[in-house]
């Protein structure tokens, strides 16, 4: 046993020395390598983006793009790389953290490149581009977006009269009919996430806004949202045995949910037999919705900024984006690119959608406070007014 141990140890040392010399390969000097990174939202998305990147490589022979997905804590992995001054050249930035990353100085302002290449940014939807703009400085181009829409189980809607609700009053009425007929067999008519990333849409519908969150309009919206739960017409996904409302819809535990474009591929692959319709988000005093969007941004510490800019501008440009949205996995963020059919319920929200994140550097910190308070309000252990004042001070930093 001991002799074997000795041999094994000797081999181990040899192997460790070998490993120390293993390095990633390098390319010839005529071709610039640009690294592109993002997270993974679905197996089809990864494959599609790789295809788009391959097309770029073919049409731009002097640039080679290395695309790699970060399959885990994207924020932490990126932060570590920023701190080590060794980030990927082009990468995703979620609108909710764009403000903080810009403030930390890790994003390259794009205004100079826009000017020198005479890039036309007017084609981007203003609210989407605005999510990545601080003052007059642009820190990224939105690559796609999705607002919230209302998804309703067709069979259950039929049992409640067959007409999809269009405003708060009709929403409540339809839910009441559904509840009295127990269409969900023990579930609840509406699934509501205990999440400001859904409830905030209702605040805008009531005429409120995040910048003035302590207004009576905002309080009215929260009271309506939580009120639906107190009236037994709605509940949170965990009480329906689900991780999120999409799962509740699939399991037949909820008839009405409010989710974005991402619920479509999910339902198709996981619950293909559930018949549901996609309807525009309800309105109240006005239309109100949230725009969830992600940008392509350039690293301040990138060593190949010009080549990276070429990639970025192409991906977010008409050509790249047309290929990206061709499978309907996301909606185009440019007005000169058409979405595939069947997405009208989402596209009609464009005029009312507010970019989630709002360019506020304190947003991601405030978001945690916001949601913890909301779960307390839903449980009845905190008042709405107290939560709204917490939110207001958290957003100021």
């Amino acid at each position, binding site marked *: 046993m001991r002799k074997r141990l000795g041999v094994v140890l000797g081999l181990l040392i040899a192997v460790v020395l070998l490993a120390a010399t293993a390095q990633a390969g390098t390319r010839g000097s005529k071709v610039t390598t640009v690294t592109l990174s993002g997270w993974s939202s679905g197996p089809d998305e990864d494959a599609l983006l790789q295809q788009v990147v391959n097309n770029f490589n073919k049409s731009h022979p002097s640039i080679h793009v290395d695309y790699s997905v970060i399959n885990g*804590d994207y*924020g*932490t992995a990126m*932060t570590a790389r*920023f*701190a080590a001054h060794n980030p990927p050249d082009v990468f995703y930035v979620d609108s909710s953290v764009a403000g*903080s990353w810009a403030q*930390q*100085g*890790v994003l390259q302002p794009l205004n100079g490149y826009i000017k020198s290449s005479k890039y036309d940014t007017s084609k981007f939807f203003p609210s989407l581009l605005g999510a990545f703009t601080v003052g007059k400085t642009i820190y990224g181009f939105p690559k796609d977006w999705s607002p919230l829409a209302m998804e309703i189980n067709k069979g259950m809607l039929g049992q409640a009269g067959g007409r999809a609700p269009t405003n708060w009053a009709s929403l409540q009425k339809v839910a009441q009919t559904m509840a009295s007929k127990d269409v969900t067999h023990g579930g609840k008519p509406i699934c509501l996430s*205990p999440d400001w990333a859904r409830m905030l849409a209702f605040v805008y519908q009531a005429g409120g806004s995040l910048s003035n969150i302590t207004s009576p309009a905002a309080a009215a919206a929260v009271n309506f949202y939580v009120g639906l739960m107190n009236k037994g017409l709605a509940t949170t996904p*965990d*009480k*329906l*045995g*689900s*991780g999120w409302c999409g799962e509740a819809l699939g399991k037949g535990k909820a008839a009405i949910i409010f989710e974005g474009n991402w619920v479509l591929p999910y339902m198709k692959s996981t619950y293909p037999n559930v018949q549901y319709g996609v309807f525009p988000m309800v309105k109240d005093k006005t239309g109100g919705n949230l725009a969830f969007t992600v940008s392509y941004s350039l690293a301040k510490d990138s060593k190949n900024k010009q080549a990276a800019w070429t990639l970025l501008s192409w991906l977010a440009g008409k050509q790249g984006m047309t290929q990206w949205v061709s499978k309907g996995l996301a909606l185009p963020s440019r007005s000169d690119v058409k979405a595939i059919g069947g997405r009208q319920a989402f596209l009609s929200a464009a005029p009312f959608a507010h970019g989630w994140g709002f360019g506020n550097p304190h947003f*991601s*910190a405030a*978001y*945690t406070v916001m*949601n*913890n*308070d909301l*779960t*307390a309000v839903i*449980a009845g*252990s*905190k008042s709405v007014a107290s939560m709204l004042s917490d939110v207001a001070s958290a957003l100021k930093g």
Partner: protein
Amino acid sequence: MATASQAAPAPRSSMLGARLREAGWGYGFVAVPIVVFGLFFVYPFGYAIYISFFHWGILGKQAGAAGTFNYHAVLHDRVFHIALKNIAEYTIGVVPLEMALGLSLALVINQKIHGRNFFRSAFYFPSIASSVAITTIMLYIFNSDGLFNHIIGSHTPWFQSAGTAIWSLVGLNAWTTSGTVMIYYLAGLQAISTDVYEAAALDNTGAWRTFWKITFPLLRPAHFFVLVVFGIGALKLFDQAFIVGGGSGGPNNATQTPVLYIYRDAFSNFDFGKAAAAGVVLFVIIFTLTLVQRLTVGRQEAA
């Protein structure tokens, strides 16, 4: 215990030489570990202490003079207090449970029972799976209408309710670590000479008394190890709390832990100075507790 025969008293110079040589070997044996720990633990911790007195962002020092403002912010933060309360409840719940479970399992499979290998593998199973996999599976089983609730006829979302979240985590982690604790106690049990048991059998000592008066005390080095390592591990709870609470520490801060607090300050708010201050506070707490353990359970140990 057999006594070593003493050689005739050696001259003082060679005794000193022997001691120097032993010290040399001692340092030699611990050299590499100490260097590794120094580089990858002591230096980063020293760095953390340094930046805890500044405003510190991703790219380094930000404007503002040095001061204890970060410590002030952390110690007066209601959320940090909740995190401390949660982790205290969690640790007091999980550590005794882990030790009891692990020791029981070790005792069971240390005997000559039929299918010993099978049982060893079965008891070790929950510890094998990665924490992400097992937590996801358990989240599924303990859903509001998952397998567990089907059996006991309840509808409580065990991991998602503010009241039951921490205790569900206690149950989950005690179960998954019991296999690991079992292995450590198994190893410790092997070191107890069978002579002890034979002597006890000769005296007609019952099984329970043999365990309590003989086995249990002889496992003291193992107890100290398990208490310290798993106690510290409990105080550093992060993975499962993150998965269960979705990283926000919710619902309503029920899954807030000190390490989650540090993590969010660092990687969500980019307030590295404050995160470092919280880390130093946590370290002081853990260090004090460990020192107490060392002075009580870990006494009478040194060679």
